[in-house]
């Protein structure tokens, strides 16, 4: 176990890859390609801090979160949690490690069993991990957890459908918290909630971190939410990190062209800001991860793309100030030496799959559950 210092790293991810095979065939499956959902990601999360992962749908951020917890087996790479290498851990040991790393899902309605009442949902994990001496002891732990997430005690005998969306998400948080984890991976924890409820849950996550010293990996497509709760933010595009920076720095000084475009696209609820700001409109859609562009993956949509290097040399993350950026020309773009140019939209279609669109999924719309 590593030392507990100020800059103590809890999670260390090295060159993580998750590839999904594309299979064809009636009797015999043959693999015709690979969807490179996560393709070489390095990141580390400091203990007690929040790492925010943003990106558009299909960029691999959820897969990364799941692979980190070994819920999806990684194709290659290493994940070490508090000094323990998870990818090679036998399943029994991994299961006991799971107590220390929990997940909060996007849609509490589909991640909670509708036929289990809240007490049973919360007890299940305790029993599996042998926490609590007896029933009364478990009840005490559960009661404390309910207080922490702001649910009333009478909730114990109720079922998920009897709660509103915000309360259901609190149950989801309680389910993760009851085991006393150190790391919580929250995959789109607020995107299914209405704004007024969203703020309640964001504040709750913040308070829990302060009181319990939790480490978060927050995965979200909403940049404003991520900026609000994260210390460090990583931006993903087509399976790889394109930029990583301390939260404030990323927003004040985005270096990667994709980050710039992303920032400029987020609407701000302030008419004065909205009228002043300049939008960087990206042309076209996200290319298919089954057939990613060569070189820099963003070069097909990048307004700053150069004829040299961008199309044939894949940029690696390199340090510029406090940020890590994967762009060959980040400095020249920041200094204004390179000017943006027009890009025409390209139709996105995976090769060999002429009938399927490259981009299908979209983030679940917020506010669809009350």
């Amino acid at each position: 176990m590593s030392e507990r210092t100020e800059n103590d790293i809890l999670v260390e991810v090295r060159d993580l890859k998750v590839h999904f095979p594309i299979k064809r065939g009636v009797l015999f499956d043959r693999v015709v390609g690979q969807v490179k959902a996560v393709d070489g990601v390095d990141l580390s999360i400091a203990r007690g801090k929040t790492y925010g992962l943003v990106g558009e749908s299909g960029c691999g951020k959820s897969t990364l979160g799941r692979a980190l917890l070994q819920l999806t087996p990684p194709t290659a790479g290493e994940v070490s949690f508090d000094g323990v290498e998870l990818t090679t851990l036998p399943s029994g040991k991994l299961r006991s490690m799971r107590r220390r790393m929990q997940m909060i899902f996007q849609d509490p309605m589909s991640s909670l069993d509708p036929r289990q009442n809240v007490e049973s949902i919360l007890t299940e994990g305790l029993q599996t991990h042998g926490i609590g001496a007896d029933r009364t002891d478990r009840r005490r732990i559960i009661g404390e957890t309910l207080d922490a997430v702001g649910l009333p005690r009478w909730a114990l005998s109720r079922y998920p459908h009897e709660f509103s969306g915000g309360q259901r998400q609190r149950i989801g948080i309680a389910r993760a918290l009851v085991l006393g984890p150190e790391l919580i991976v929250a995959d789109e924890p607020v995107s299914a909630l209405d704004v007024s409820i969203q703020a309640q849950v964001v504040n709750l996550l913040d308070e829990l971190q302060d009181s319990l010293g939790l480490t978060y990996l927050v995965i979200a497509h909403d940049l404003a939410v991520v900026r609000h709760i994260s210390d460090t933010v990583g931006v993903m595009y087509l399976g790889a990190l394109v930029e990583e920076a301390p939260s404030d720095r990323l927003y004040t000084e985005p270096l990667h062209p994709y980050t710039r475009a992303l920032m400029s696209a987020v609407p701000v609820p302030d008419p004065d800001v909205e009228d002043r700001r300049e939008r960087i409109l990206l042309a076209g859609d996200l290319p298919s991860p089954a057939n990613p562009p060569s070189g820099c993956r963003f070069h097909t949509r990048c307004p700053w793309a150069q004829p040299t290097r961008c199309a044939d040399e894949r940029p690696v993350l390199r340090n510029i100030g406090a940020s890590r950026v994967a762009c060959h020309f980040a400095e020249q773009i920041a200094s204004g030496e390179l000017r943006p140019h027009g890009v025409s939209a390209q139709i996105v279609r995976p090769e060999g799959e002429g009938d399927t669109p490259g981009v299908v999924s979209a983030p679940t719309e917020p506010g669809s559950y009350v």
Partner: protein
Amino acid sequence: MALLEVEDLSVTFARRGQRAVHAVDGVSFSVDAGEVVGLVGESGCGKSVTSLAIMGLLPKQPGLSVGGKAVFDGTDLLQLDDRSRRDIRGRDIAMIFQDPLSSLNPVIPIGLQVTEVLTRHRGMKGETAAKEAAALLDRVGIPDPKRRLKEYPHQLSGGMRQRALIAMAVACQPRLLIADEPTTALDVTIQAQILELLKDLVRDSGTALLMITHDLGVVAGMCDTVNVLYGGRVVETARRRPLFRQPRHPYTVGLLGSVPRLDAGRGEKLNPIPGSVRDLLPWPDGCAFAPRCARRTDECVGEPPELVHAHDGRSYRCVNPEPLPGMVPAPREEESA
């Protein structure tokens, strides 16, 4: 004279043995020609039902009752028979929905779906219609439009599908375009593309746009006038800037305080509204927001608050509104006068 004048619109769903649901409860607002008007609110506030009622698209079922008026250019849309309503729909008023995949017919090529509008309302045929359809797709920024015409909705990406839907909507140069959460299902960079497209279309053709959304950021960038809905009622109406600068209704204040902002720093606390939308049950008559409201008084519980027209052209439905900064809260009698 406003282009669309909605007056005291109410939609009630009644089911046997259950209490009737007042999804929309006396909503009034107006849209001027060429204006962008926002209907903002959280889920269940009645914003979509309002638009469906105006368009006559609510499923005809027993127990549904629609009251009030929706006067478009002198005719009350709610009194029209189906035939004349179909003439107006698509030609004078068009609509864009949230999810383009479910509002496009999956087994008919895009081209046919676009030309259908042209055939029905502009009497175009064959080659001419196809040419016009390609021109429309080109106008909304779909690359290689001639080829796209032969393709099916599933062959296009989400953003392209939404563009195709917009092409169908603007095919007849409608005077009013109703967009119900047009970008909610899309990624932010695609959302920015679509919003920019809508802005251009509105600017170039003078179409009025009724924008229904939950996203205050979208409203801040697009709308001239904003109507905030809560519990089936319009709780505040104001021009864009005053609304964001000095919201008066406690719900608007709460909504603005809840949204994390991209330009705010890490660790700035959000001010959420306590409780949830469901908390309206014990107050059947009073202000729907009263159970969650920090400025609640005894008056809020009795009967629905009257619409107050303030001197600066805005109106709100609250007996104890947020005072304007730097002003001693005036006695209410003066303010409503």
